[in-house]
């Protein structure tokens, strides 16, 4: 706890320095010229994350997306002269800043971009009222499940991650689709987020499964968590892909043919006995062990 407090103090120093030096460096009280006609929009924009992004004064921040704004104002408000980014064509304005950053980048050729689903399908640049997180049009994952209704069905199964109310249930603090998926990323497994070390998002919460272990279950070597688990929800306990543990294990641990990876349990594992129907009663360290090659502890 002491080291935790030290870390907080250490990390707070740059904040305080920035705060102390910021009063002269970043103050911008230049009137926003757009407010002459668009007073409500400009007032609401103060709560928008873009209000503090980029350089220049307040008017410049409007012009960053609304190209031709000066000409539009000079012409007395001619709408033909100003750009209002909308749809696929309008996405270029967003992507001029939001692209290619970090381990989970916004990828213009991502799965949604390729299908012509533009930024403003899910995001609202000038929302009314208190803006939602990430300027989403709808709260939580509502936008996701409106196009992916089968995902809502999967999360309605009895064993799932605790999801936000917009997916299923009543939880305001639950996980959202974007907790694990990068909606601006690729297809299939490429849509899964990765942490700063490049590891799959599952380990961000399930850190006890990260290891490294002296003995790793080869399922983690050849596949991923999804080899045995259904993270969107399962009809089986522990979100497993099979109802009975023995069935899940034996599908790999059968020595036919001899060319695949997966050992054969010896014959004292008599499956007619309940003791041997539940493999993880003995093989408790199924994700990895530092002591037992049989993953028994």
């Amino acid at each position, binding site marked *: 706890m002491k080291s935790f407090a030290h870390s907080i103090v250490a990390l707070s120093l740059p904040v305080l320095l920035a705060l102390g030096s910021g009063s002269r460096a970043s103050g911008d009280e230049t009137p926003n010229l757009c407010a002459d006609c668009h007073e409500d929009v400009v007032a609401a924009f103060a709560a928008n994350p873009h209000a503090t992004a980029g350089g220049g004064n307040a008017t410049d921040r409007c012009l960053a997306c609304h190209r031709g704004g000066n000409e539009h104002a000079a012409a007395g408000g001619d709408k033909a002269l100003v750009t209002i980014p909308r749809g696929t064509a309008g996405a270029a304005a967003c992507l001029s800043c939001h692209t290619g950053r970090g381990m989970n980048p916004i990828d213009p050729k991502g799965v949604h971009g390729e299908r012509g689903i533009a930024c403003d399908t899910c995001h609202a640049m000038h929302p009314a*009222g208190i803006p939602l997180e990430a300027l989403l049009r709808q709260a939580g994952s509502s936008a996701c499940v409106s196009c*992916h209704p089968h995902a809502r069905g999967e999360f309605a199964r009895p064993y799932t991650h605790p999801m936000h109310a917009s997916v299923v249930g009543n939880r305001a603090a639950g996980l959202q689709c974007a907790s694990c998926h990068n909606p601006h990323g690729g297809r299939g497994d490429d849509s899964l987020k990765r942490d700063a*070390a490049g590891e799959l998002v599952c380990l961000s919460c399930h850190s006890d499964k990260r290891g490294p272990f002296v003995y790793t279950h080869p399922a983690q070597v050849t596949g991923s968590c999804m080899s045995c688990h259904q993270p969107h929800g399962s009809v089986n306990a522990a979100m497993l892909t099979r109802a009975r543990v023995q069935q899940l294990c034996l599908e790999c641990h059968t020595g036919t043919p001899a060319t695949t*990876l997966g050992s054969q349990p010896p014959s004292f594992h008599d499956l007619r006995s309940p003791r041997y129907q539940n493999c993880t009663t003995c093989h408790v360290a199924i994700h990895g062990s530092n002591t037992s090659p049989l993953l028994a502890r």
Partner: protein
Amino acid sequence: MTTRMLAMTVLLAAAAGSAASQQLQFDLSAGYQWLDVTGSEEVFRSQTREKEGLFVDSLRLVATDHRSSRLFDRLRLEAAGLGETSDSRVHLELDRARAFSLRLDYRRAEVFSALPDLANPFAAAGIAPGQHTFDRQRDFFDLELSLLPGRWLTPLVGYTRTTYAGPARTTYHVGNDEFQLASDLDETVDEFRIGVQFEAAGVRGGVIQGWRETDASEKLTLIPGLGAGNSTQPTLGRDVTATSLERTVSTSATAPFTNAYVSGLVGGRVRFLGSFATTNAESESSEFDSALGQFVSFDIRRFFLGLAETAQGRAENPSWRGQLRIEVPLLAWLDLSVAYSASHRELDGRSFVTSQYFDTVNFSGVELGDLSTVLEARTAWERDEGVAELRLAARPWPWLHVWGAAATVDHDVTVSPAAAEVVLPGGQGGSYTRAIHRLTGGAAVELGPAALSAEWTADDADEAVVRTDFLDRDRLRLRGSYKIASWLRVTAVGEQLEASNVTAGIDASVDSTRWGGELEIVPTPWLSLRGGMNVVQSDSRLTVRRPQDFGLEPSLYAEDGEELEAAVALALGRFDLQAGTTRTTYDGTAPFDLDRTFLRLELTLTDALGACGHLEHREYRQAPFPVADYEANRYSLLLRWNRK
């Protein structure tokens, strides 16, 4: 940090931020929840994690101040689930233009499982819950500060702390029996990051260097009264019993990591995107086990009365992954992209285990005194993956998107078998390669109110590394939506998946169909109706070998499920009502019924104040195992205060 402290911190931060601001908007909703459960409370809590008590349902606050003399331009605070809930979340954004940008996140999740039929050898006898339960808490704190945002060079620092702690129940196999142990785990992961992002001459990129440290300790002890173990039969004429079992485990791991990424345009046309991440995790562990009682070991072919075992482990796990993609617009409406990604991961593990068996007696009854064994084991595996893809995307008309891709995925896995693992020869190590050729094609059409998309993917693999790998797989996905009128919208999706591995001895096949849809009707601004349906039919088959007689039999697994949903939202004057019902019914290998009905009524008292009542009824029936059934009612009353 207790949730009460957290709630106070959040409210103080909100108050401090808002006091200094020019503009303030907020929305706070808090109240009390009651629960009424009949049947299996363990299953209800394992599935829903619902709790009873006071809680802050949600808080959203935005304070802005664009005067030069103030500390920030924008403060945004979101919190949910504070108090007596199993999930809490706080998110803070604090920005000052071109000076700093601060992001802080906190999440708490209480994880609970006490299921009667998960790996429970006594489930059939109606003994519940099972022998593997946990009641633990995860806390996640993350802070990231970017300095000078919007300038060409942006330094950043970050810190993440994750903790996972609490009690659990597990089993321990020793002396030819399994015993139930109470576990107490305490794990902390600290991660520091420092980096810089840059943007110059159309090229963006960044480098982040991080350090992660994990410390974990776990203490396990025999649960009083359960020294008889799981086995009710004597072994070689002797009862196996434990009078004491104790096990302590401590692990520490370090993982320095680096990630870098870059993107940009060459010649104003050709876009490139690249990323690379590498880490080298190392762990050290020490374990001490002690046991007293009457035990049998077939490894040393003796009975014994006590065991003291120490183990020292060390593992090293270097890995890297990189990706490069180049995109070339061939025509104004046609893009070509070429991508290659590669990843490498390996493990080198060593373990040194010394075991002392006390008062040993051989199976003939001869007393042989104490016996020591030493095991020095080394494990190693290595995995490489490479994915090469060529993709074409065309947009010949604004209403049509067409894409197609060809890809090759190469896997190369080498696993060294551990000598102690050998139980039956084969399947425990070796070198395995697998190449998958993938073809994808799809189209999306948007014509006025109608949108339709289809994608087909075919995979063809030359080998299987594990038995569940496919050799052939075809997947077809369809999606359509039609906004018939401004008040009526229909969405439908479908997916057909067929996968197989016809290798003799495996004979695997998967046939899965999923389809569903939603209908949304908004006849008036104050009324909306929604209905949905999802259907899943999935059958899989694979040959397995029974260990007890080595006979072969098909492993069959089937899901035949249907989910129906209906919801209504009504806004009449000061009243806002939402109600809905969901029925999920599954046949197949794991049949069950899950019904959920809810009603939420919100009353606007004044412009700033409101009250809300929420009722939910949930009913779960697991036909072949009624011990798991439950019926639960949840009631909550909330007050809402807002300023917009």
